[in-house]
């Protein structure tokens, strides 16, 4: 892998540069906008240089938007908390349910096993719209409408299939002999699962957990339809800056930046598990 010609090195760097610009320039621009007033953003042509303001962040964090009309209450920070709470608990529940299931599909060939695995996947492609109306009727019946528990349950639609199918692949990549050896050493099945299988599949669990966290975070239709205003995530909250009086691009930009931060922090934290992938390369049978 190391024998690259200078020409190829240049090509690689240019390609990487183009990719980074394509994917990161819009983010960069959103960050810039978050430090501008609406008036500064809406200039022709757009400008890179401006005198930055923190007013957008102040408004979001303090929960008060000072306008000519007066002060308006914003619930953005509460939305942020809802997103965090819903995504975190949903992913945790999905991990608790999904990792053992993924292990079962990877390690055991059992009757109906593949069918169960495919059923779990298929809930991912049941279009949310299709089930939302019956589901909201059902939730009304059993008292789950407008509860966090109900929402976390529905969020399993997003998280569970992703975790089951990604983690399953990683479990399959672990040499079964390592687990057999541990069993023969005198450890119970559960000890083997928690001390061998799970740690070795950690890069996969981290990747699946991170991705399902992101997908849960980005969802809005479930909470919108099934929850009241105090359970809305940041994706719905950020739309509050679009009103009849106009659209506050600066605040939307700041809202995006603020809503990215927790996920980014999680990604940075998960990163050390993600890169474990290589060091364990020798594991694969």
């Amino acid at each position: 892998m190391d024998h690259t010609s200078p020409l190829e090195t240049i090509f690689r760097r240019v390609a990487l540069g183009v990719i980074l610009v394509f994917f990161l320039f819009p983010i960069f621009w959103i960050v810039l906008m978050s430090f501008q007033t609406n008036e500064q953003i809406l200039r022709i042509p757009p400008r890179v240089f401006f005198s930055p303001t923190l007013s957008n962040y102040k408004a979001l964090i303090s929960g008060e938007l000072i306008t000519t009309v007066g002060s308006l209450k914003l619930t953005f920070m509460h939305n942020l908390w809802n997103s965090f709470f819903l995504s975190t608990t949903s992913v945790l529940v999905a991990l608790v349910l999904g990792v053992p299931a993924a292990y079962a599909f990877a390690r055991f060939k059992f009757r109906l096993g593949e069918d169960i695995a495919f059923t779990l996947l298929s809930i991912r492609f049941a279009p949310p719209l299709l089930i939302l109306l019956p589901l909201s009727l059902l939730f009304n019946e059993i008292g789950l409408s407008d509860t966090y528990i109900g929402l976390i349950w529905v969020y399993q639609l997003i998280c569970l299939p992703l975790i089951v199918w990604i983690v399953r692949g990683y479990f399959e990549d672990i040499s079964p002999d390592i687990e057999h050896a541990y069993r023969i050493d005198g450890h119970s099945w559960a000890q083997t699962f928690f001390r061998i299988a799970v740690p070795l599949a950690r890069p996969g669990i981290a990747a699946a957990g991170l991705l399902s966290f992101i997908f849960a975070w980005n969802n809005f239709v479930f909470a919108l339809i099934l929850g009241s205003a105090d359970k809305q995530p940041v994706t719905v909250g950020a739309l509050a800056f679009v009103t009849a009086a106009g659209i506050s691009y600066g605040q939307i930009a700041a809202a995006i930046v603020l809503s990215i931060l927790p996920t980014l922090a999680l990604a940075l934290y998960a990163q050390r598990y993600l890169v474990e992938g290589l060091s364990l390369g020798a594991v694969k049978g």
Partner: protein
Amino acid sequence: MSGLELRHVRKAFGAHEVFPDLSLEVEHGEHVAIFGPSGCGKTLLLRLIAGIYDPDAGDILMDGRSILDLAPDRRGIGMAFQNFALYPHMSAFDNIASPLSAHGNSAPTEHVREIAGLLKIDHVLSHAPRALSNGQKQRTALARALVGEPKLLLLDDPLRNVDAKLRYEMRLELPKLLRGFDATVLYVTQDYKEAMALGHRIAVMSRGTIRQFGTPEEIYYQPADVEIARLFGDPTINLLQLQPEKSERGVHIRLSEVAVPLPDGDALPTGRECTVGLRPEVLAFVDADVPAAIPVTVEAETPLNEKVVSLVRTSCGHELLVSRPAGTPAPASGPAHIGVDPGRLLLFDPSSGDRIALQDAVSTRGGSTT
């Protein structure tokens, strides 16, 4: 009481039947080498014993008790895997200590150090498996299997993935090491020398059955069939398709028109071809005037360390390998004569490959070894 017993074990994967009906009885403390070509089910046999797989039928007993309803962790077995199967996220020390900690031994340090010392890996105990050389990995795996002092030790071709020098060393070292443990040992190998060196007895497996189970001598001198005869011995046994002839002095075969008498056998096949097995060391160069000397032409000669192997051709076209200790004189090429020790000649049924027992072959020659 036998240390390990398999009774009519059957195992199939789908339509593929690996063991139709397998039985084996191993004495307590005995070291048994399971020898056979790859794909014959050796590894599966160990896995059935370890409890990784359950047999479809039959029973497996240790010390007279069935262990089938015991989970792998309750069978008191130590096992070393061919691919080592070290825990990549634990240090060599923790790898070795794993069986001890599993049984609640809270202070395994001394024990681990002791066994690591025996295996000469005490200096790398803090390393992660990926930082170990193949030899060190193999010793770590072995240490892990031994450290719990299991009643039954299963070694799955542990020398397969190490280099030749190390394999040679370990082949000498291992029997000594195992003698220090009071364990019944099953040792899987594809290398007949390993099997001969390590097993009190050798079980030769082929296509899901145990073809022969006996001491190394039995396997060598009285192979159950032509295939086993071919697998053991280096250079390999000379196999000739000949038709024994009957005369007033008994039954004989002819090599270069010279009659070689066969000892009396139960139903010596005459009038049809059978396979004659002549190990290279059974043949020897002799002077032309020795009775029944067989004239041959020496085609080539290869020195093989302690012995020299010559390729000779009989007048009727059979090619034979002749082996002699290095340093003994012999013609390097051209015409020569060889002699045969008829008592050590092997005869196989040409269709089944089974050995045809010759009268008293072993009782007259028993005790003599290579």
